[in-house]
């Protein structure tokens, strides 16, 4: 009999401690030792997370901070889903780091923080109540900023500060709501369908709604929603590529997870439906979808373009959440996974290009497909996924999102939503595919004389290909995943009040 509770604790404590331990170890002359240690820790944590996927339930009360504030970890389907995505992306981006980090300094520090953030993310996924989640949300910010400023250039440090202060701003906005939730909730534990105490709330409806709204807006900072998205295009591109991949693929999903928790596990969809919160979230997310794509389309630096694309794609997820119906939520959750894999692969490809050629701007990438065919093939496949061309992952999630919007019956948005999604998909094609097209078809005037194929390291190409395959698999065989997601949406929308 496996003790799942212990594994639950281990899944976040182990990478955390092994990261801290890495600080204590002397800098190795042979970088393989550091990497072997990191790799082993990553894989062990991944295995722990995989075991947890098969757990029925696990609940651990770690410590009581004070009466009413417990640090509790409880494994539920949403948490499992999140932890599953995290471990896949984190391990693959970790392997990519092995080659990539060769040309950066302070490798040991990078890997240490990389492991610590992994632990914190597992804690975030497994958090069983609002306070625990808030705590790990803060830890996530505090432990991930060293990844952003890793190269310590002026630009990176400034971006890291921007990241920190935006994140704290959001977190404290959420904390404001959290304080009030203590009064108006039956408990702060996450229960599908919400825990608002109707009796306590009567007479204070507006206050409660404002507080819920503040919590959602606060957590949406991490998810890069307009108007507090500005940190994202600054912070993600300056980090080392594997860290950008992890940040853009996963950390932003921490914000999404927090919003999911607030809307479906604390407030409850019925409280929010039809109120200004829903309309605000719908409007802002659609604005962000369009604006992000537009900005990405205009941006010339590849990594920045990808960061803007994250801004846009994240709001697809938020849009689906704001629809407050099972189809929309299914689309959101699918897109969470699809976007995590795709964006990670895109950033890794950008990293591989920078590492091997030093090119950062899109217009420098003519003929890149001839030089690095493996990487650009991977890039192309996931790009198609992000645009939403069947049978890739993006298609199925966008299909759910659109059908959720159409069936929601919310005036205006049920049509406006799919239209904006469609326009944004076109823009996505517009900003992603030029790399492929110019890469493979550089045109007549391309200098074939100086052309030579670059051999990409196995550690670089492998994660990109695996992620590309994963993104296609989601699209081709979505049934397993939708069934799993069905169990999440089922418990949220059926239990109700």
């Amino acid at each position, binding site marked *: 009999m496996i003790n799942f509770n212990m594994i639950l604790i281990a899944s976040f404590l182990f990478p955390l401690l092994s990261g801290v331990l890495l600080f204590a170890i002397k800098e190795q002359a042979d970088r393989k030792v550091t990497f072997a240690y990191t790799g082993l820790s990553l894989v062990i944590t991944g295995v722990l997370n995989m075991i947890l996927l098969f757990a029925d339930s696990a609940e651990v009360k770690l410590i009581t901070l004070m009466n009413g504030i417990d640090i509790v970890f409880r494994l539920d389907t949403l948490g499992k889903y999140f932890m599953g995505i995290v471990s896949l992306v984190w391990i693959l981006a970790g392997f990519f780091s092995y080659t990539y980090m060769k040309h950066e300094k302070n490798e040991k520090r990078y890997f240490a923080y990389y492991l610590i953030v992994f632990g914190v993310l597992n804690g975030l996924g497994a958090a069983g109540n609002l306070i625990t989640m808030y*705590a790990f949300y803060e830890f996530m910010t*505090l432990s991930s900023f060293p990844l952003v400023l890793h190269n*310590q250039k002026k630009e990176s440090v400034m971006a890291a500060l921007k990241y*920190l202060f935006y994140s704290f701003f959001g977190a*404290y906005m959420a904390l*404001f709501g959290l*304080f*009030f939730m203590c009064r108006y909730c039956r408990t702060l534990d996450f229960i599908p369908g919400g825990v608002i105490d109707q009796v306590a709330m009567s007479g204070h409806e507006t206050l409660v709604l404002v507080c819920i709204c503040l919590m959602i807006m606060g957590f949406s900072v991490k998810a890069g929603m307009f108007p507090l998205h500005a940190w994202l295009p600054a912070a993600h591109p300056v980090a080392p590529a594997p860290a950008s991949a992890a940040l853009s693929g996963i950390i932003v999903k921490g914000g999404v997870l927090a919003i999911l928790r607030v809307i479906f596990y604390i407030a409850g969809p019925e409280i929010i439906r039809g109120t200004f919160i829903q309309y605000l979230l719908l409007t802002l997310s659609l604005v962000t979808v369009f604006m992000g794509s537009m900005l990405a389309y205009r941006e010339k630096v590849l990594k920045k373009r990808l960061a803007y694309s994250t801004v846009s794609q994240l709001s697809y997820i938020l849009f689906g959440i704001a629809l407050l119906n099972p189809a929309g939520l299914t689309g959101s959750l699918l897109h969470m996974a699809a976007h995590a894999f795709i964006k990670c692969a895109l950033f890794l490809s950008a990293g591989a290009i920078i590492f091997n050629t030093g090119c950062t701007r899109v217009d420098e990438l003519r003929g890149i497909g001839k030089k690095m065919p493996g990487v650009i093939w991977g890039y192309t496949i996931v790009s198609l996924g992000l645009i939403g061309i069947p049978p890739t992952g993006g298609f199925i999630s966008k299909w759910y999102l659109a059908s959720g919007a159409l069936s929601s019956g919310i005036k205006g948005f049920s049509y406006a939503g799919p239209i904006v999604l469609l326009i944004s998909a076109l823009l996505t094609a517009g900003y992603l595919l030029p790399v492929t097209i110019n890469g493979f078809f550089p045109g007549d005037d391309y200098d074939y004389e100086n052309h030579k194929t670059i051999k990409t390291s196995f550690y670089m190409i492998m994660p990109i290909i695996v992620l590309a395959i994963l993104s296609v698999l989601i699209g081709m065989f979505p049934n397993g995943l939708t069934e799993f997601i069905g169990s999440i949406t089922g418990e949220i929308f059926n239990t109700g009040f």
Partner: protein
Amino acid sequence: MIIYLLPITVLFPILASVLIPVVPIKSRRGITWFIEAIVIVNSILVWYLLWGSPDQSFTLFKFTGNLSVTFHIDGMATVFAGLVSFLWPLATFYSFEYMKHEEHERVFFMFYTMTYGVTLGIAMSSNIFSMYFFYELLTIVTTPLVIHTLKKEAVDAARKYIYYSMGGAAFAFIGMVFIILYGTTADFTYGGVLAGGTFARNINVLYLIYVFSFMGFGVKAAIWPVCGWLPKAGVAPTPVTALLHAVAVVKSGAFAVMRLTYYCFGADLLRGSWAQYTVMAFSIFTIVYGCSMAVKERHLKRRLAYSTVSNLSYILFGVTIMTPLGLVGALAHLVAHAFMKITSFFCAGAIMYKTGRNYVYELDGFGRKMPKTFAIFTVSAFALMGVPGLAGFISKYNLAIAAVYSDNVLAYIGVGALLCSAILTAIYMFTIIIRAFFPRDDFDYETIKDVEDPNYIMILPLTIFVIVIFILGLHPQPLLDMFVKIAVGNL
């Protein structure tokens, strides 16, 4: 006879410290042992006293009528005296290293130790007159500490300190007279000594006098607009700024305000009045004002001093919520802030002592050279920001919850101010931390190759403080239970 310990713990450090300049011990080592012995013996006596916590009170001397200097131990006294007696030996220990470079050490330590007794006097006073007496005395004995370096800057600061404090005391005096004349008793009584009905016609006078005396005692608690002395007084040696201007003196102000509100006027009498809204608005404004000034300030110690201004108003905000929960929050922050701020000040002191650098922008790359100091500083910064798991989160949580349950819209705004201040705290602390640990990539560590951590005399107190910050953050419940008992008048 434990009851005699009441005056002894107050008078012993005052009288013994007079010996410090004249005692015939030649070696520096000897004199430090002598001072440390006084402080530790007194702290042990205080703990013994608090443990026994006698019910009777002890009258030291009587002036006339019901004006008497009387000591008594109740819950509030236990908290403040316990806090002070815990911090003093450690701070004194730290000072031995810090004061090495400074002149006329013995005079410094004389006044430093004397302040210990006076602060205990404030903590253990059983009526408003004794408290006022020791409050004035505190101003007098701490002025030489501010003036210590005898530079023009220090003299100016001391002058400002005196004017502000004395002026504040004059306002507080009005309140004192009022309480003594109209109160049913001059002793501190939970729930207040003014029977509301008597003042039905002149209730606004009562409110006005409350506001006056709040602002009067608030001078020491550095409430805006009378907070200017605190950042200025940062010219004093670090042990003074750390212990007196982050704990003993300023917390005496906050403590006096608590006594005034809950034990003299009575929270029930004031709740919902314009007086409450006025003082609460002042404290909310100060919360934001202090933090904003801290962000602007580039001198490390002055930045921390502005941070103190803001944090003291957290305590005052808790007091002005005027519910038992508010008092719990205020007491929690009184204790938590003491540890957090003394820690960050001592780190700043360690930096100044080792390198003589005072400004934030001079601290590039120090994280690698002074790893212990900066690790500790980082913990204190996180605690001040309110990262869960550390002391600051617990106290802010309690303050905010008190505000949420108060049904007072201004208090809701106060919660917003707390969080606004938290983000500003993040800004002024993180700019230091990032600079120290992650300097620009072209930074040359050769330029600071002589920088190193201080020795154990400085590190040991810091380590103990950090452990306390963690304990207060992870297991504060026993302490909070005690605060709840105090706040409902059971202790």
